[in-house]
């Protein structure tokens, strides 16, 4: 059983995601990876389906993990994790190993979870394997040069949704809501939560609760990407905070079917404060910003936060 971390001083000092990786300066996904590894501890196996956190971390013949790590294709993070879990269970049952059952963590991007990797993720959760699946959401396919993914928000510029005279808003579709999809279709699900790297204690505790749940657990982590979203590298944490404070991202958990809001901002700010700092939204006209405000208000209502910024 992993204990609750009460304060930053009580957080483990040891690093299992060590310095020396090729991620960009100020990388949000790298920061959340470090926090996840810290919370999970030494008895952990990481799986890296293709994505930034595979490509940018593995350089020729080396990687930054002090714990075992294995690559999986972008389609099959859930399937490889199921195999590792089943093999450990069988070997422990047949006394072929004296190893303790490890924390099996899949670190998939939004492409490896909400898009290309969705079937393997859903199948693993349907079968009820004891794994923690983390989807770090940087809202694009970033390692191949910022292409649109299903979680890219409305109005964002990507190389596949450029803003121009015909489509002035860039991306036309509203993003997919992966945590709600996972929450309502998988009877074996034990724990589900959303977290943000701007709230490190909350994130680490949710990782621990997920690992303690002894069943399929899903964690959805908001991870701002300075390169893909076009903002300065030092604003990563601020961007994560603003996303929560403007209602573009909501922090909640679902523990054994019990829904709980884990963080409620004191005052909801207009989404404009969040998007004006990002180059990917720089082309938006007022009517597009209103559409994004409507989107944020809708999500806030769904999770039970009072909407205080009206959309026209």
């Amino acid at each position, binding site marked *: 059983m992993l204990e609750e971390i009460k304060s930053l001083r009580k*957080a483990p000092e040891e690093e299992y995601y060590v310095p020396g990786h090729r991620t960009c*300066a*100020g990388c949000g996904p790298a920061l959340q990876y470090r926090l996840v590894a810290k919370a999970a501890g030494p008895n952990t196996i990481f799986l890296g389906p293709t994505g930034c956190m595979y490509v940018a971390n593995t*350089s*020729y013949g*080396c990687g*930054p993990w002090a714990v075992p790590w294995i690559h999986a294709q972008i389609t099959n993070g859930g399937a490889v994790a199921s195999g590792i879990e089943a093999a450990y269970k069988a070997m422990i049952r047949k006394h072929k190993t004296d190893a303790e059952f490890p924390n099996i963590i899949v670190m998939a991007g939004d492409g490896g979870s909400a898009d290309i990797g969705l079937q393997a993720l859903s199948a693993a959760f349907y079968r009820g394997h004891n794994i923690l699946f983390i989807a770090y959401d940087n809202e694009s396919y970033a390692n191949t040069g910022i292409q649109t993914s299903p979680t890219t928000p409305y109005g964002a510029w990507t190389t596949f949704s450029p803003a121009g005279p015909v489509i002035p808003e860039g991306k036309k579709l509203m993003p997919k809501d992966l945590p709600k999809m996972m929450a309502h279709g998988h009877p074996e699900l034990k724990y589900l939560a959303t977290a943000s790297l701007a709230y490190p204690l909350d994130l680490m505790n949710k990782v621990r609760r997920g690992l303690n749940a002894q069943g399929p657990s899903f964690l959805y982590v908001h991870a701002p990407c300075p390169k893909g979203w076009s903002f300065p590298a*030092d604003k990563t944490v601020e961007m994560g905070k603003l996303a929560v404070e403007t209602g573009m991202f909501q922090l909640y958990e679902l523990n054994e079917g019990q829904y709980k809001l884990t963080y409620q901002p004191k005052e909801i700010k207009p989404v404009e404060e969040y998007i004006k700092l990002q180059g990917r939204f720089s082309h938006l006209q007022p009517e597009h910003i209103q559409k994004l405000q409507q989107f944020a208000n809708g999500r806030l209502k769904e999770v039970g936060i009072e909407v205080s910024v009206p959309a026209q």
Partner: protein
Amino acid sequence: MSISPNEVPFAGTVPSPKTENEGMITGSWRTRRPILDADKCTECLICWISCPDSSIKAASSGMEFNLKYCKGCGICNEVCPVGAISLVPELDFED
């Protein structure tokens, strides 16, 4: 490079690093270096938990930067609640 076939790692398996990955030293990326004002620092550990490159450590003498890996992103300067960290252009230093 001459490795006998028996010594080639199985299925691309490579050893895990313990405390740092020397295969990818990133300190040379930095254009601005974080400098700590120890008088202002309250050791609240917010910079330590916010560093994507695990390059800040709480030592007995205060917060320490690991300049071998620090990429100079400046998150530490941004999150510090008392303004104890400043970023100085790398060209101002001789080393």
